[in-house]
């Protein structure tokens, strides 16, 4: 998966988790939680969706990598390099 494809995957997950939010102006360098209503249970949904859809296992001590869109894509890029969208 390319970086734009990974971003697209994350956006699709966020749209399902926060269906009332407008994500069209999401700033990739700013924390998700500063731009949208996202509590810890929602955050776990991101981890769960990645696990279900792409079998990506994210250990708890690495959750901090999912702070912003940029950091999330950076973190997932090597893990999803050989995975098709």
């Amino acid at each position: 998966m390319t970086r734009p494809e990974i971003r697209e995957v994350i956006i699709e997950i966020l749209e399902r988790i926060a269906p009332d939010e407008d994500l069209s102006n999401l700033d990739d360098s700013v924390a998700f939680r500063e731009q949208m209503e996202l509590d810890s249970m929602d955050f776990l949904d991101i981890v769960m969706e990645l696990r279900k859809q792409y079998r990506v296992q994210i250990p708890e001590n690495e959750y901090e990598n999912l702070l912003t869109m940029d950091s999330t894509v950076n973190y997932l890029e090597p893990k999803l390099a050989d995975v098709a969208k």
Partner: protein
Amino acid sequence: MSDSLQDHHRIVITGVGLTSPNGDNLTDYRANLLAGKSGVVPFQTRYVKQPVLAGVCHFDEFLYQKKKERRRGTRAGSVSIYCANEALKDSGLDWENVRKNRVGVYLGITEHGNVETENEIYEISQFDYDTKVWSHHHNPRTVANNPAGEVTLNLGITGPHLTVGAACAAGNAGFIYGLQMLRLKEVDLAIAGGISESVHTFGIFASFASQGALAWHEDPAKACRPFDVNRNGIIVSEGGGICTLERLPDALARGAKIYGEIVGYAMNSDALDFVLPSSTRQSECVQLALDRAGLTADDIDIVSSHATATEQGDIEESKALRAVFGDRPSLAINNTKSFIGHAMGAAGALELLGNVPSFADRIAHATINLDQQDPRCELRQVVANRPRHMEKVEYILNNSFGMLGINSVVIVKKFPAEHGGVYA
């Protein structure tokens, strides 16, 4: 029961919110009950191979709930939120200025959590039963207080909330708990009733089928046939019936419209069997409710029966009603399940609420699909197939019984127009 308008033990219904398979508000629901319109439809349920019928609701989930709230919550929560908001809107309460810590939510449920548990098991079955994909939402969705708790989250209610697990006696039980908490002055407003999401669990259909108690008919509208000789079981339905209950002096002080007064109630237990009912205990429960209301059987105008169209259930209730009410022809006995199926935790609430407008129009809605009454269900007062015009409707008695031998009865009295009665 005191006639004093200042008696704080007198509890009245001041708002109604409901969703049923044949109507999402009291006006439509009542109109369909009078018109003989069923809400039973063909239904798909996971795993069950035989054709299944059910009563399905069509209310707008997003009228009072954000999409995210709905995703986080349950269908039972969504039913509850819709009905609670409808009841509050109908009550005319100035909600902004209601003290939220003095509001209690008491919702009867037959069961809760099966839907979510079945969904999660199905989900992990797609991942070779890897429990790492079991949702972190499972626990908050399946805790027994979930439906009532979702109402408090949605409406910012900080008073007590709980669900009342009472099998199919739960709708009445919710009203009874609300009434008791108002009398105890634990709360100033009770949001009370019963709800069900049962059609979304395959287990309830499969279990009734295994028990030989799941109804079927080529024409879905004819499938639920209480008291009929050709009845063949239960139609599972979802729904909700929730009221705002208030102490009479509080309701009068704010000039509330009043649907009726709950003047009697009772609950008891058969202590006999897991599923088979007992006419003796049922008639004792009815009699206890009459005694508490200071009434005799002759005072009751309409009995809203529980009968689910099972073989034994209908026979036992018929015996119980004959024992208490005899053959008095001025009594009307009707049955709402014949229209909407068995709405489980919501059944008692919906069945009572569909009859309450009778105080005004003096019409007892029918029991449909009663083509040939089972001689073992010998009740001469059953309103068969067409509504019956009554000389008077002062008191409605509502039966609601459930598995493990739980019985509940609620009696509602017409309220006079000069004090706010809307159905007078």
